[in-house]
């Protein structure tokens, strides 16, 4: 299959007026929900699932792609203008971005974020075009044992690497897997965890679970701690950049992209680590070190590019392997299933036109974001002034509507409330949400691969490691699980170097990178004991 001609066909599909309109709706909606607190792209896609079931799958995914990139863009706008980042991936952008805004350079900060997002998103999508087919070629040769191993790796990596507390991550994963078990077992037809209720026999609808945990849980949580004093929003005009700003931005954009894409494409994806690495790198390489801590443009350009490149990278395992590593990708995977499309390596073969139209629409969406959002920045800033009672009442209203319209039964709303309360509790006690959602979505698929594997080996457990790739993946799993112990041992052996490195760079590893994220990284090792709760959480 010729990639280029497939991509051109994809553009032909995506550029029809109707699909272009859906892409535009997608980016506008995505940016709006990215800007608004309490609501994000994953939840928006989940809410739209029942509504989009009347559309062509291609149009629906073109819209979802717009929401995905738009949400990323909106998140950075909020973090620059408010300094209270809603998602972990824009924490780093918020550091210098908000300082720039306070110093009267909001327009430049927004411009470098927007143009950097465009550059990184476009390069990231191009890399996706190159790498996804290669991954597919490699993946079609894999059997159930390897898939099972890769899924185990993705679940464990997201649980153990992201977030502040591994223990609480695993608790969340366990709850998610348990929710995924509800319903009739596909193979044997046995009812599991149904409490004898026939309404639970089909299992819990992913839309209902996602909306409950993301939307209802968030609305209840914010209601319990609603900020009574209005936030300080920095007024902004039309974003623009001077010659000097361009000169200082383009290298950080490219370096940020180089960090972001590979991290996003890994099974433990996520944008925290690459944005952090990008920040540290720019701080070290800058010709204006005196500006760091007062609003340096490099500190916005690099991390923001890394963030968007990571978002593009995440789509590689999602499209090529059917393996989501962030919340939005997880819900998009659920959308594939709803449209009767089997995700996995055969996706490119079976649904080639759809996938290539989706990828083409990522390029288009990126371009639309740049075109639409530079002039619209002041409008988005106004959106932040929406009275909070209306915002959160609206979230509950549309959550109810979305969940109810799946099956038109009030019982789903009871589940929505019960799981919403669970979502509230998870936020109160620092349980990350992402492992739960991935557990719900990947759990049943994991079980299917496990059963296929042992069916092939006629019940022999060694069937699990009957493929070389599976063995490699299990070794990586072991490393991921043992990493904190290894790191501790290493630090004990060489206390001084380790402490110095942990404050500044890579070797601090995911754990240190995450925990220093909420404060300027210059705070160093002391910060790594604190555990800011929202990291590892992506606004959903």
């Amino acid at each position, binding site marked *: 299959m010729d990639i280029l001609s497939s991509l051109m066909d994809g553009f032909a599909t995506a550029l029809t007026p109707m699909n272009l309109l859906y892409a535009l709706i997608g980016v506008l909606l995505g940016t709006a929900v990215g800007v608004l607190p309490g609501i994000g792209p994953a939840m928006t896609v989940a809410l739209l699932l029942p509504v989009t079931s009347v559309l062509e799958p291609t149009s629906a995914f073109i819209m979802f792609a717009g929401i995905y990139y738009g949400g990323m863009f909106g998140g950075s706008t909020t973090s620059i203008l408010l300094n209270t980042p809603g998602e972990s991936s824009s924490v780093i952008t918020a550091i210098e971005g908000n300082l720039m805004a306070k110093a009267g350079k909001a327009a430049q900060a927004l411009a470098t974020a927007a143009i950097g997002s465009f550059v990184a998103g476009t390069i990231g999508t191009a890399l996706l075009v190159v790498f996804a087919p290669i991954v597919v070629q490699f993946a079609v040769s894999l059997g159930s044992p390897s898939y099972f191993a890769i899924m185990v790796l993705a679940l464990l990596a997201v649980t153990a690497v992201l977030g502040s507390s591994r223990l609480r991550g695993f608790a969340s994963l366990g709850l998610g897997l348990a929710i995924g078990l509800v319903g009739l077992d596909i193979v*044997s037809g046995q009812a*599991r965890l149904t409490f004898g209720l026939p309404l639970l026999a089909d299992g819990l609808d992913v839309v209902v679970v996602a909306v409950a945990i993301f939307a209802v849980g968030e609305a209840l949580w914010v*209601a*319990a701690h609603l900020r009574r004093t209005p936030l300080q929003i920095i007024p902004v005009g039309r974003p623009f950049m001077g010659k000097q700003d361009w000169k200082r931005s383009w290298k950080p954009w490219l370096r940020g992209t180089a960090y972001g894409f590979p991290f996003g494409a890994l099974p433990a994806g996520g944008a925290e680590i690459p944005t952090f690495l990008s920040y540290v790198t720019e701080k070290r390489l800058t010709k204006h070190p005196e500006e760091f801590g007062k609003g340096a443009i490099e500190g916005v350009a690099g991390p923001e590019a890394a963030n968007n490149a990571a978002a593009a990278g995440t789509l590689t395992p999602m499209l090529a392997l059917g393996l989501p590593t962030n919340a939005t990708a997880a819900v998009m995977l659920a959308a594939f299933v709803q449209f009767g499309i089997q995700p996995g390596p055969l996706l490119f073969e079976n649904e080639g036109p759809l996938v290539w139209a989706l990828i083409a629409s990522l390029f288009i969406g990126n371009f639309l974001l740049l075109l639409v959002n530079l002039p619209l920045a002041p409008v988005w800033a106004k959106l932040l002034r929406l009275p909070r009672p209306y915002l959160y009442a609206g979230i*509950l209203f549309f959550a109810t*509507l979305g969940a109810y319209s799946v099956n038109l039964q009030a019982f789903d709303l009871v589940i929505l409330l019960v799981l919403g309360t669970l979502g509230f*509790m998870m936020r*109160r006690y620092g349980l990350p949400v992402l492992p739960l959602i991935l557990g719900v979505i990947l759990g049943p698929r994991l079980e299917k691969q496990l059963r296929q594997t042992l069916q092939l080996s006629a019940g022999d457990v060694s069937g699990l490691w009957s493929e070389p790739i599976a063995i490699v993946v299990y070794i990586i799993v072991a490393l991921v699980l043992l990493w904190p112990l290894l790191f501790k041992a290493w630090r004990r052996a060489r206390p001084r170097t380790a402490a110095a490195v942990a404050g500044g760079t890579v070797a601090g590893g995911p754990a240190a990178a995450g925990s220093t994220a909420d404060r300027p990284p210059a705070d160093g090792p002391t910060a790594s004991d604190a555990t800011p709760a929202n990291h590892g959480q992506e*606004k959903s």
Partner: protein
Amino acid sequence: MTSLSSRLKGRSELGVAALLGAVGAFVLFDAVRLVVPYSQSDPVGPKALPVIVGALLLVCAVMLAVNVVRGGHADAEAGEDVDLSHPSDWKTVLPLALAFIANILLIDWAGWVISGTVLFWGSVWALGSRHYVRDGLISLALALLTFYGFYLGLGIALPAGLLEGIL
């Protein structure tokens, strides 16, 4: 008793451990209850994953309890609109939950237009808005718009309930 209650003070996270334990125990119990004849085509059977998940939850419950008793605690999630300096405000959350429950009870009988209006109006009130008339009009408009939007645009007929025939 006083020493026990003082030791438990500020340790509400133990409730999370208890919940994890309860869910884990239930998952295990439910799995044990399954009877499956051994089948060549499905050697794993429907029991294996529930047993693993139940065990995982029980282990997490115990470890979390130990962690909390030793003084470990998680930080609540921050956010743009979240102010963690004051404790949970139940005077907002409970009316909000009541508005939600009212909608569940009303939706099939009174129909979406009425129950949705109640839901939005009640939520806005719970969250602190006191523009009764304006909020009421917005609520009604939203409910009507979504009702007709879903019916005409998507072909999904939300329940009309009491207003059957009028709408």
